[in-house]
């Protein structure tokens, strides 16, 4: 049983005016514990695929099954809860809440999950330590570098103990040192804790670390390899 399964996924933007076919029948299975990079040139459909898997966008046709749950069948509120409890997001622009400290940002999802304060605090510190930024726990994002912010974002993505993490171009705004550090952390979390990571990227440094590479071109999978 796959963690994620897409069946004949299509997505067409502006279907009634100037149709843009972002995805053209994508069949994909991702198993638990994978460290997968979805690569391809700009406009190939990487972000669209990630958004649809993450329940942020709806496919024009086809199905997305996560742990055998067809997410198209979920109501708006059920889908929000599903994302909160099952999917971790890491964005290109970090998207931390600027008025919260690093620790509060990590705790935020657990607050939404109404988890006890003690558990939130302990888990947030544990995750900040895991991404190597515990000493900045009480600092707001504005006082953190891009690399540090992205590490907090990774900690936030893991806070809800999701089934997998979707990372859209996570290293696009980072220098090589910060990129290496981030990838080291994610790889360790993948290896030691079995966390599933799915990246969309055209950063070679990420591609080099991936254990599965799915290449998309014009909305179709043209290559699916395990180096």
């Amino acid at each position: 049983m796959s963690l994620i399964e897409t069946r004949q996924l299509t997505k067409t933007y502006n279907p009634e005016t100037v149709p843009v076919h972002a995805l053209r029948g994508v069949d994909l299975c991702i198993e638990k514990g994978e460290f997968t990079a979805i690569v391809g040139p700009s406009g190939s459909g990487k972000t669209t695929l990630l958004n649809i898997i993450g329940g942020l966008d709806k496919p024009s046709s086809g199905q997305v099954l996560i742990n055998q749950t067809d997410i198209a069948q979920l109501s708006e509120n059920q889908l929000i809860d599903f994302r909160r409890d099952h999917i971790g997001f890491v964005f290109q622009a970090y998207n931390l809440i600027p008025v919260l400290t690093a620790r509060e940002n990590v705790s935020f999802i657990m607050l939404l999950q109404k988890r006890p304060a003690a558990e939130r605090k302990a888990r947030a510190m544990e995750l900040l330590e895991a991404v190597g930024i515990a000493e900045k726990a009480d600092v707001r994002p504005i006082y953190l570098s891009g690399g540090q912010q992205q590490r907090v974002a990774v900690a936030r993505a893991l806070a809800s103990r999701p089934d997998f993490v979707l990372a859209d171009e996570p290293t696009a705004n980072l220098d090589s040192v910060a990129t290496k550090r981030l990838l080291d952390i994610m790889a360790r979390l993948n290896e030691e804790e079995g966390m599933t990571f799915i990246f969309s990227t055209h950063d070679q440094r990420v591609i080099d670390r991936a254990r599965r590479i799915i290449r998309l071109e014009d909305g179709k999978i043209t290559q699916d390899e395990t180096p």
Partner: protein
Amino acid sequence: MKKQKRTTEPPFLPLLAWRNIWRNKRRTLITLLSVFMAVLLSSLMISIQQGAWNAMIANLLNTYTGYIQIHRKGYNDNPSVNLSFQASQELIRKIESHPKVQIALPRLESFALASTENLSRGVLVLGINPEAENAITNLTARISKGKYFAEGEKSALLSDSLAAHLQLQPGDTIVLLSQGYHGMSAAGKYSIAGLVHFPSPDINRNLVLLPLKTAQEFYGTGNRITSLALFLDSDSDVEKTAKTLQNQVDTSQYEVLSWTQTMPELVQARDVDTAGAILMLAVLYVIVSFGIFGTLIMMVRERIYEMGVLIAIGMKRYLLGIMFWLEITFIGLLGAILGMIASFPVVYYFHQHPINMTQLSSDATAIYERFGFEPIFPASMDPNIFVQQALFIFLITSIMALYPFWTLKKLKVMEAMKS
């Protein structure tokens, strides 16, 4: 699916909202200032308006009409000495036994023509018990010239504007002509003991006071009176007291009326004036509301992307809506509370040092007096005035908070995250 023990809703939204409003300090401070000024000005305006009315009514009640009057049935609609009555000691005792009633003063009231050698004027003649009346209304303190009178004296006290109009001084004589009890003619000549100043300009222009027995002789009523004026311990519960007294007297013979019933035109004038003030307040609040709404629109529009992200990571739309509502309510309430705090000393100053139009403009003074107002405006310290402003702001902000809820309802996460 993972299920863990859940606790009660954490109060993180207020914290988040509070921090969010300080993301743009300058904008928040400007909005706060507009609410602050609105509350300050509206509190001051309402305090002075209400204070002026309260003072005028209190002056009128305490120096002249009393809070409740008891007449013979029908007198209020047809005030005439023919509808006078003999107030038995039993009736007075019964009324004065009510815990709220301080005293019931017997009075004989009617109209007359007051004449001097060259001038005449229609006046209101009020026969009073000099001693008892003075104990309550402190008339001696209002004597501006001459002296107070005693029961049985054939002398009169004139309100000072009337005396000025008739060019009379203490020691002069005034002739009163009227129709007495059951059509008999009433005529009398009285020396002027003193002049009295009444705060109510209307009364100050028209009143002649006579000792009760002298007035009864003048009108030929014997020991009859036209009213018992009731003075209460405080101005609260007037209507309730009047109702209780109605049950204690024979209403087939007497009518028990509160001041709002004996002077409905005064109540009406106050209501019209209050409505005018409320209209001005409404204009003020509409202006402030647009200011707050402008801030709210900016707060919402510039955070569309953030809303998209928060919904994406698992925050429900209604929680986001509550967060925006809290943000705008915090600004509104903080401005209102600061406005209340600041308005308190200002209003207190005007309470202690009423605006005295006589010192500012003689034209304005004349206008106010023509309409029966004493041209002195003390501010009211009624705490309700301040609280009402805060509640009003709360109401405005709550209504405005519908805007972020509406925006969030329409928000498409993907479009928001591309904005």
